[in-house]
C-alpha cells in the first residue's frame, strides 16, 4: 500500500519537523536556537514568552537556562510534542492559541518575548499586529528576540537566495509540509512596531537572521 506510506509521511509533520528544519538549514537551525535562548535569558527565573514554540526546540534551551516559560502555539500536535519533552511540574505554561491572541496576556510581564521561525509563517498584517502586541508584553528593559528567514541583503546574495529558493521550497514542502516566505524587511517591521534593533546576527549568506530589539523610548 504505497498510498498508506505516503499518508503516514504527510501526517507525520511534527515528527519530521525538527529533522526537516535541520536538513533545510544544514544544521544552522541548532545554532540559531542557541543564540535565541542566550539572548532571551539574562538570569535564572526570567519570565519568557515564546510565541510559536512548535516542537519545543527553543523551549528546552530556555529551560536549561532556568527561565520561566509561557509557550504558545496554535497547533495542538506541535504542543503535544513539545510537552512530551518535559517532566510534569516544570515551570512552563502551555497555551494553545494563535499569536494574534497574545493581547490577552498581561502587559509588561516578560523579560523577553521570543519569536523563533514563526513570524515568516504569518501574513504582513498579522506580523504587524503580533510585533506591536509583543512589544507591549515586555517589562521595562525587556528584549524582543526574533529569528527567522529573511531576504538576504545585497544584489548578489539576493540573486543567489532567489535561485536557491525554488528547490528549497519544494524540499521544504516535502520535509516539513509547509512553505514559508522570507521576511522582506525585518528591521523595518520591528521599527514600525515601536522597537529599536540592538543586535543582529546572520547565517547562511544572510538568509537566516537573529534580531534583538527593545522598545524605543
Amino acid at each position, binding site marked *: 500500500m504505497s498510498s498508506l506510506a505516503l*499518508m503516514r509521511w*504527510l*501526517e507525520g509533520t511534527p515528527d519530521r519537523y525538527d529533522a526537516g528544519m535541520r536538513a533545510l538549514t544544514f544544521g544552522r537551525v541548532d545554532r540559531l536556537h542557541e543564540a535565541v535562548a542566550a539572548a532571551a535569558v539574562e538570569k535564572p527565573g526570567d519570565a519568557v514568552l515564546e510565541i510559536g514554540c512548535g516542537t519545543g526546540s527553543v523551549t528546552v534551551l530556555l529551560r536549561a537556562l532556568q527561565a520561566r516559560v509561557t509557550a504558545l502555539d496554535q497547533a495542538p500536535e506541535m504542543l503535544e510534542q513539545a510537552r512530551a519533552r518535559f517532566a510534569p511540574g516544570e515551570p512552563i505554561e502551555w497555551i494553545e*492559541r*494563535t499569536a*494574534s491572541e497574545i493581547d490577552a496576556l498581561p502587559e509588561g510581564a516578560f523579560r523577553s518575548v521570543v519569536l523563533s521561525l514563526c513570524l515568516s509563517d504569518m501574513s*504582513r*498584517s498579522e506580523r504587524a499586529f503580533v510585533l506591536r502586541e509583543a512589544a507591549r508584553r515586555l517589562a521595562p528593559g525587556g528584549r524582543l528576540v526574533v529569528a527567522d528567514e529573511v531576504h538576504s541583503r545585497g544584489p548578489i546574495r539576493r540573486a543567489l537566495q532567489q535561485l536557491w529558493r525554488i528547490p528549497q521550497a519544494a524540499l521544504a514542502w516535502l520535509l516539513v509540509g*509547509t512553505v514559508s516566505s522570507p521576511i522582506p524587511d525585518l528591521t523595518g517591521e520591528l521599527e514600525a512596531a515601536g522597537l529599536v534593533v540592538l543586535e543582529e546576527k546572520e547565517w547562511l549568506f544572510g538568509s537566516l537572521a537573529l534580531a534583538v530589539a527593545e522598545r524605543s523610548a
Partner: protein
Amino acid sequence: MTAATIVRNSVLEVLQTAFRLVPWPTEAGLRSVGSPDESSPVLLTCNYDLTVRRLLAALEGCDAWVVVAATRGINVWCAAAGGHMSTHQVVSALKTSGVADRVRHRNVILPQLAATGVLALDVFRRCRWRVRFGPVAAADLPAYLGTGEKTDEMRRVTFPLSDRLQMAASWAAPASIAFGGLALFFAPAWALPLCALVTAMAVAAFTVFERLGAHRRAILAAAFTAISLGVTLLFGGGLAAAATAAFTPLLMTAVLTFDYEGTTPLEGGSHFEQRKWTITLDSERCEGVYRCWEVCPEACFEKLEDTRKVELAHDDRCIRCGACVVQCPQDALFFEDSDGARIEPDVIRTYKLNLFGQRSVKAL
C-alpha cells in the same frame, strides 16, 4: 480598470483555472469594495487568489469590507475541510486585519462552505465577533446583502456545466503536461493528439461520467483506448505511438476515477471506510437553533417550525462533510456506523481531512 489590469486578470484567470489544484496565495488582510463605512458589512474569505478576485468582482456595486484570512493559498472548501481555514485563521484575521477599527458592529459573514472548519461559537468566545454563514456562491452575495435573507437556492451546492468544465480544465492541464511530456520522449508526433485525448477524457469524466452507471470506469477506459488506438493505427503510427496511445487512456482513467474526495462537495467517497458512516440526529437534544439547516450544502434538513426542531428529511443526499456536526451547539448530530459505533462531534471538530479524504489531521 486599466487595460493592463484587465490583461493581467485575464491571464491569471486562465492560469489559475488550469492549475487550480495547486495553492495560489494572495496577500492576507483587509480590502474594501466601493466606499464602505462603519456600518458596512464585513465578509471574510480565504487567501486563494482566484477566490479573492472573483469575490471582489461579484461584489461590484456594493459597499463592503473584505477580510482575507491566511489559509495558505487554499480555497475555502478544501482549506476548511483540511484545517487551514479553521477558527484559528478566522480569529487571527479578524484581530490583525484592523477591521475592528473600521466598523462599529461585530458581525462577520463567512462563506457557507467554511462551516466544516470554522467553529462559529468559538470565534465569538475568542474575539467577540458573531459569525453568520452567507451564501455558497459569491454571485449570490449582492442579493443576500440586500435582503439579509439566505434563500434555499443560496444554501445548496449545485454543479452546473460551467463549474464542471472548469474542473475538467483543472485536470486536463496538468494531465496534458504529464502525458504530452511523456509522448515527447517516445513518440513526439503524438504529443498533441494525446493532449487532446486527455482533455476529452477529463471533459467526459466531469460531464457524462455520472450517467454511465455501473462499470463506468471500464466503459470509459475501453471507449477511449479504442478511439486512441484506432486513430493512431489509422494514421500509421508506429509501435511506440500505439503503445503510448493505448497506455494513456488507461492511466488517465485510473487518475480520473480515483476517489478524490473534496474535488467537488457533491462527491461522497467510496474508497474509504468513511463511506459506511451515516449522519444521525438525536431529536431529544435538538433545540431548533437551525445552524445545521443553515450550513448543509445538500439541504438534508427540514425545519419543523411547530416543535422547533429539525428533521433529517433527506439524509440520502448527505456527503458527510460534517458541517452540521461542527456547528450544532447542542451536539445533537454525530456520525454513526451500521454497528452503532459513534464518532462524537468533538472528534469531527478536531480532526480534519488529509489529502486522501481521511479524517486524521488534528487541527484544533
